[in-house]
């Protein structure tokens, strides 16, 4: 059953607005993501010493830590969006109110804005705490944007899957890690390039291709995950 594009857009926008309205009422994901990321950043920074990692090695090791902080913060907060629907038994109403693809895009847009906020908070803090200088700020911004998009797209589909299973919290990490690993490897490589001034090469294109593949798979698979 096809609907006019304007209806589809309205549905997606309504889901997006609903997500933020619910979020601002409880602030669960906002608090979880921000506090988890800051706590982890403090632990990492304290673990590496007050002056950051050893000069000369920091460009190699710190991008890994930055992306681990982002991954685990996302894993702590993002699944909530779908788990909440199952727990409060609003999933059926949502099934009736919006087409699956509009729902997926609305939820994806919500996850994207949440992650963009997280990156805007963690990125500058990370650079300041670790005494890092960015040789290519444009590349870092592009990496955070493309990496964040892939992280949101992969997490949204996996969150929809685990919301219907038992042991949701641990299962999300178990299921999402193998799917998100290529994204992490590419993002780490690009972030290294941004810190050290190396050229992005094929990695940025591959990261964008990964985003395209995961989003297409998400749009294709979400209807069968969501509807019995």
């Amino acid at each position: 059953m096809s609907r006019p594009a304007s209806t589809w857009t309205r549905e997606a926008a309504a889901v997006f607005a609903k997500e933020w309205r619910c979020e601002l009422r409880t602030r669960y994901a906002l608090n979880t993501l921000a506090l988890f990321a800051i706590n982890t950043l403090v632990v990492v920074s304290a673990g590496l010493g007050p002056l950051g990692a050893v000069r000369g090695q920091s460009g190699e090791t710190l991008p890994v830590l930055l992306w681990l902080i982002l991954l685990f913060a996302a894993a702590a907060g993002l699944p909530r969006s779908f788990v909440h629907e199952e727990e409060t038994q609003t999933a059926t109403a949502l099934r009736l109110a919006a087409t699956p693809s509009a729902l997926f895009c609305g939820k994806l847009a919500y996850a994207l804005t949440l992650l963009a906020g997280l990156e805007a908070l963690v990125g500058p803090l990370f650079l300041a705490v670790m005494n890092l200088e960015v040789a290519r700020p444009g590349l870092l911004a592009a990496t955070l944007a493309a990496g964040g998009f892939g992280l949101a797209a992969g997490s949204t589909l996996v969150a929809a899957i685990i919301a219907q299973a038992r042991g949701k919290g641990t299962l999300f990490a178990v299921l999402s890690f193998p799917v998100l690993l290529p994204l992490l490897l590419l993002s780490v490589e690009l972030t290294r390039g941004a810190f050290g001034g190396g050229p992005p090469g094929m990695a940025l294109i591959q990261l964008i291709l990964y985003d395209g593949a995961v989003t297409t798979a998400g749009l294709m698979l979400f209807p069968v995950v969501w509807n019995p």
Partner: protein
Amino acid sequence: MKRTAFTWLLWLWIAAVIVGAFDYAPLAARFIGQSSRILFFHVPMAWAAFTAFVTAGVYSLRYLFGARQPDGLRDPRHDRAARAAIELGLLFGVLATVTGAIWSRIMWGSWWNWDPRQTSIVMALIFNGAYLALRDAVEDAEKRARLAAAYAALGLAVTPFFFFVVPRITFSLHPEPVINASGRVEMESRMLQVLLASGAGFTALFFWLHRLRTGLLALADRALAAAPRAALAPAAASRAPVASTE
């Protein structure tokens, strides 16, 4: 009859590969001792694990988007086939990892080096494990099959990135693949014959085991469907004498 003949042919073929690997193929240059002989088993095991992964993805797509049964439900045979392929992928993946680690210890001096192909096979193993963990976390059979199939299809979508991205990022100590970037086959002819024969044998072995496992899962499903009736029957029988004594 045909199936029995195929089984016997398969065992004979595998036996011939074993003999060929130890007696017919020469030792590879620059390999320590007899270590190159493990290649004839390690590479086909990794290949079988990859075949299993793709088979699971294809059957999962067929389960989700293929023709439905007359009653409108999705075909559970495809789900069983996908699950069987994942289980066998785990088996062949573990065997490939262990044989690779043994070879790595002999040639590189350590069991594990995070070589790109080691990374890829470990990720495939974790993916297969995650697939089975997901199945265990869902009680309803239809929902379990649907969610697991969607996850396997998602895995299929990101697989190319493991093959193209991981080897490019990390430095590899691994010997050159048989067909390398220049497109040439660089291997002694008898070694290549045994390797190809072993590859064909392991592929056939995978599909033979897959057929067996799928059949076994179908039997288990049938037994489970009949179980409530069987479970209720003795309970009803044991209640009868209790009622008579009261």
